[in-house]
């Protein structure tokens, strides 16, 4: 296995369980660095923009956006699909890679999962706020018993969406929280401040690291991983049904589920990369998030990116092969219509740029990977724009064709959702261990986590 030997290690040599614990928990327990305040302040201001926009929207209606008839869905749904897509990497890493026993995942799964949660939180805002009467949508979308005997309409893909996304959010949150118990206990025990002791203590749910705890934990995490695995595939498949079930040219396509899932993983890993590169730098965690991780993620991006490219290709092919005039026109309009420049930009971002990842030199360049990951994120956003807006704005009857022009409130919601995401992200990296301490200990020494360093874990004497 010389190839294996060539690869950078998953963890830099020389770490013992104790030093791993010291290093990661120190990130949380030391004094707040100045850059954190700056970053958090910027994110928090952007979050306020979201709140202001929401108030404005609730007072005036969704007419503050640029949507119209025929373009009934605009930025809100673009953002929703984009955020949900980003959320995919977390579950993929924590569930599927766990089941596949990919040990390298241990150092990125914690914040990838956090990213998932926060991305789903951002996406959820759009699901609710894009409706015309948010105050009713907030509960009418759920099947609750009522005296009028009115139920949601279960044939609607939007209904499936509600279930898929809420299930996904629930499972992800539980999975993430359960996975935090041992580390929360570690922080509780290491915290010098009374508040830290109390807060972490409550969150740790009485974790004492006994064999029985570990046993239950292992069972729970395997079960949750099992539950989460189908969700990785199902959520974005269901999201893609929103379009595939519609009869609109550009939406009505059987390739959508796999192509959306691949796209989601693609954008999800791009976002993990975007986040992990600065993170390992500022926290000095290069020893834990090594080049090995970055390269692995780059390879996954390359693979899923190629699947996405295949999807684009099939769409083009089917537009021609189907012989359907509406489909052909849709494709022509997508490429050469008024929004054609967005399509070309999308191809540049999503297909051409990532081909650089074939080069080992690019894969080993942290800066290069960082930029490519951002470009892919932009590209995936553009992809959703192309699918949603470009398909809608010219459909069957030329008389109803129109253009969609985003308003400042469209942008405010988008920037605001970034604010929400990064505010949560900053809070997370400040107050919780960004890397799973106990799982890192397993690869640092290769022992069973249950026996490692019991001293720190508040075990029962």
């Amino acid at each position, binding site marked *: 296995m010389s190839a294996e030997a060539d690869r950078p290690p998953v963890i830099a040599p020389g770490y013992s369980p104790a030093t791993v614990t010291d290093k990661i928990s120190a990130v949380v327990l030391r004094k707040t660095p100045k850059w954190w305040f700056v970053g958090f302040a910027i994110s928090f201001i952007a979050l306020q923009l979201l709140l202001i926009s929401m108030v404005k929207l609730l007072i*005036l*209606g*969704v*007419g*503050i956006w*640029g*949507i*119209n*008839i*025929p*373009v*009934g*869905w605009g930025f809100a749904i673009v953002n929703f699909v984009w955020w949900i897509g980003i959320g995919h990497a977390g579950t993929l890493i924590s569930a599927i890679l766990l089941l596949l026993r990919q040990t390298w995942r241990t150092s990125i799964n914690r914040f990838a999962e956090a990213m998932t949660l926060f991305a789903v939180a951002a996406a959820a805002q759009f699901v609710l706020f*894009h*409706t*015309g*009467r*948010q105050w*009713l*949508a907030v*509960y*009418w*979308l759920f099947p*609750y018993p*009522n005296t009028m005997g*009115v*139920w*949601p*309409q279960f*044939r*609607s*893909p*939007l*209904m499936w969406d*509600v279930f898929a996304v809420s299930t996904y959010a629930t499972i992800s949150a539980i999975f993430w929280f359960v996975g935090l118990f041992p580390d929360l206990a570690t922080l509780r025990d290491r915290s010098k401040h009374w508040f830290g002791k109390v807060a972490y203590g409550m969150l740790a749910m009485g974790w004492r690291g*006994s064999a*029985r*705890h570990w046993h239950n934990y292992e069972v729970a995490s395997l079960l949750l991983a099992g539950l989460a695995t189908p969700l990785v595939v199902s959520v974005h498949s269901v999201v893609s049904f*929103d379009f595939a*079930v*519609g*009869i*609109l040219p550009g939406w009505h396509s059987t390739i959508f589920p796999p192509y959306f899932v691949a796209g989601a993983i693609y954008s999800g890993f791009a976002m993990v990369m975007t986040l992990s590169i600065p993170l390992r730098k500022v926290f000095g965690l290069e020893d834990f998030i090594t080049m090995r991780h970055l390269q692995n993620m780059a390879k996954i991006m390359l693979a899923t990116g190629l699947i996405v490219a295949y999807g684009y290709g099939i769409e083009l092919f089917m537009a021609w092969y189907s012989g359907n*005039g*509406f489909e052909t*026109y849709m494709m022509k309009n997508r490429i050469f219509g008024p929004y054609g420049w967005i399509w070309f930009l999308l191809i540049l971002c999503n297909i051409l740029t990532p081909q650089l990842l074939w080069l080992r030199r690019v894969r080993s360049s942290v800066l290069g990977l960082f930029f490519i990951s951002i470009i892919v994120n932009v590209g995936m956003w553009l992809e959703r724009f192309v699918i949603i807006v470009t398909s*809608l704005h010219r*459909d*069957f*009857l*030329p*008389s*109803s*064709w*129109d*253009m969609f022009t985003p308003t400042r409130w469209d942008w405010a919601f988008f920037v605001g959702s970034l604010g929400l995401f990064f505010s949560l992200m900053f809070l997370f990296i400040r107050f919780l261990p960004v890397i799973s301490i106990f799982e890192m200990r397993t690869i640092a020494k290769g022992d069973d986590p249950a026996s490692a360093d019991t001293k720190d874990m508040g075990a029962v*004497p």
Partner: protein
Amino acid sequence: MKTLDGPNFWRSLEEYAETPEFSEMLGREFPRHASEWDGDEDGVSRRRFLELSGASLALAGLTACVKQPREGLVPYVKQPEDVVPGRPLFFATGFTLSGYATGILVESNTGRPTKVEGNPEHPASLGATDVFAQASILSIYDPDRSQTITKLGQIRTWPAFAEELQARVKTSRALFGDGFRVLTPTVTSPTLAAKLRELLGVLPKARWHQWEPAGRDAARAGARLAFGQPADVRYDFANADVVVSLDADPFTFGPGSLAYARAFARRRRDAATGGAAPPRYYAIESTPSASSTLADHRIPLKPSELHAAAAALLSAVSGAAVSGNAAPDARYPWVAACAKDLKAHAGRALVIPGEHAPAEVHALAHLLNEALSSFGVTVFATDPVESEPVDQLASLSALVADMKAGKVDTLLVLGGNPAFDAPSDLGFVEALQRVTFRARVGLYDDETSQYCQWHVNETHELEAWGDARAFDGTVTILQPLIEPLYGGKSALEVLAAAIGQPAAKGLDLVRAHWQKQHPDGFDAFFRKSLHDGFVAGSALPPKSLQAKGTVPAPPAVPRTGIPGDLEIVFRPDPGLFDGRFANNGWLQEVPKPLTKLTWDNAAHLSAGTAKGLGVKNEDFVRLKVGGATLDAPVWILPSQPDGVVTLHLGHGRTRAGRVGNGTGVNAYRLRAAAGLWTAAASAEKTAGRYEFATSQQHFNMEGRHLVRTATFEEYRRDPEFAHRVEEVPKISMYPGFKYDQHAWGLSVNLSSCTGCNACVVACQAENNIPTVGKDQVRRGREMHWIRIDRYYEGSPENPAAHNQPVMCMHCEQAPCELVCPVGATTHSEEGINEMTYNRCIGTRYCSNNCPYKVRRFNFLDYNKDKHLPVLTLLANPNVTVRQRGVMEKCNYCIQRVNRARMDAEKENRRVRDGEVLTACQQVCPTEALVFGDLNDKTSKVAKLKAEQLDYGMLVELNTRPRTTYLAKLTNPNKDL
């Protein structure tokens, strides 16, 4: 335990005793049963407990309700006769435009007029109305109407005004009325004319002037030229096999247009369904008219060429050399074929001059009709319908000249708005201010009122008594539907005050007048006339007049002398008419035929002319006519003749009200007395861009089979032509739903639709549809439930235009229903795709999935103005006013269907065919829309759907639409 260090503490006696239970507990870590809080048969399990507590918490939040405000309700002490709450009453009255009446029936809901329908028995309506009559209902409630009598802006009482007016009359009397003038629009009202003559009797030297900006001076002068006496002509399209229009818009403009449109459409339909010969319609025009969308041939001409073309046609028809046009005119190659066609149908042919064409062209048309022996068959000459047919331009000019000369000391302006719409070079406003006593009776405190000391707020037509004649002379007695909302007096009452009857009521004046005409059995006569909506037998009898005389010399063609000058064409606006409807939001927002512009007028140019000027759509051109200039934004219009710029009158108001101020540009500024309808103009590009709001941006069908057309000949050869273009999927995974009660459906005849918009506004009135304003239309958020798509076909210079009314198709397999997450849009068991507004949360998914894009969304609170108390009166009580965030769309006037179903159930019978008329169907002048029960095989709609011409739009998507179209058939001349 034993290995523990330190002092031997113990925690409990059990521990000390080292009982096995305690040891087990220590070993277990979690208490026994923690993992399953055991529920015995009678107990509650942990799971169940959590379920119950969670559910009760959730349900606790759902009990909140909106607290209803306290309102007092007062029941009728004595119920008024015929008033059944929830059932509307209909009253027959009339709607007048430029003096001419159309018979209407007005729906009154508990005393509020809410909807105008045509009077089926009235000859000018035949059950239909135009777009203006539909929208007039909104004007009654217009909160911007003037609400008080004012003198120099101060509120005054009616007695104060009446006293001062009578004093003026008294002083004038000494001078035999010298210097006393009355200015009115066109008057056809017998009572008003009688009152005016009575006044002139008292003041013999007083004068009555008339001015109607969209008047018929040319028709009057043309009739005088041809017949040697004043006369009106009316047409019978039912007998016309070949129709040539000389710049006319016979089906959408003018007092008889509703009847004409109906007759022509019926001829075409009969030809399509039966084997009758189809009529042929040549439209020769200086600017494309809505009627021309039905034309078999459209021939664009400059207005200056109209006379020569008509003369050439006359020469070719009569065979005689026409003065100055001895040789066939090579400029008009179509003349020979057209004349041949006319001659072949002599006695069944019809030539119609346009209302705005020069008098000489009117005379030529009369001569042509004479040469074709059309009189008595397709054309009927009658005495003039107007009470006092005068040359109104001369009348107004004389008034202005006298005012300038200081010869006028009292001027009573009854209606109209001359300060806005008088020819710009007359100087009406300056002259007006030299009059000592100026009083104005008007619906609005508008441009004219601001220059008059006295303003008397006028009653709306639906608030006052009056009478008027229709295009054929039929008299309608106008009755009020509601007590005047803002008080006010009618012109009739003001005139009565002038002759000493300030307390006279409109009803008494009208009754008194008619009593004189019908002294015997008057009460019965009056009752019957009111009930029927017209005075039986009052139509003017045809007179046998002969059009003779020589061909009139062509009118002087005005030239600017600048090379490359343009000819300007003025037309009344299809929405605002002459400007009087500027404050009517419905008419502002209705997309104009052909251009689909809303809230604006534009300088319409042909693509070639625009290129020559170097302008594109939304650029500005500076138009110059004589000394007047106007910067107008450009909108390129296919079919517009090169070198012609069309401007619609009526926009650019400054004192119209909150809705109408500042929309578009004021074309009257260029309209001089010498060029009322056409003038020479120069144009140049100027800086700046304008933003238009159109409801349709793409006019090309992109090769899709949306409007299907053929000639009659092609149709006879291949009756199935409409179905050869797509494959209709016939398979389904599920058995179809069985509609065993009713199956409602609609058939739209594309051969008939003129695109007049009456259905659009009728739907708006019936279904409480809000207007959204220019900005929202620009954003693509207009709310009309029915829209008229217009597609062009053929060369860009002179394409054929097709109108296609599109409303909800009520697909049997509706793509919208499937995707709604809350089931707010569902199918009724009668096949209507219904909207449950209360349930809608506004995801807009249904609209995205609707291939016809007929759904409309309340993006913002478009019903804000409905919070104005006066506008709440307008709403149809049977239709929900939609909240913001809710989707809405056509529901085949479900309230009308339900009403008919309830009536039928009470009488234990089926709903009869024709019992339910949708609002769009009822108003349609050409009967293009037919609604009914498809399960009733004898129904009109079922028969239409069985026609070979019937096709569904986008049926290849397997939507199975209930609204289908009858393909458009034309009858072009093969020689052309």
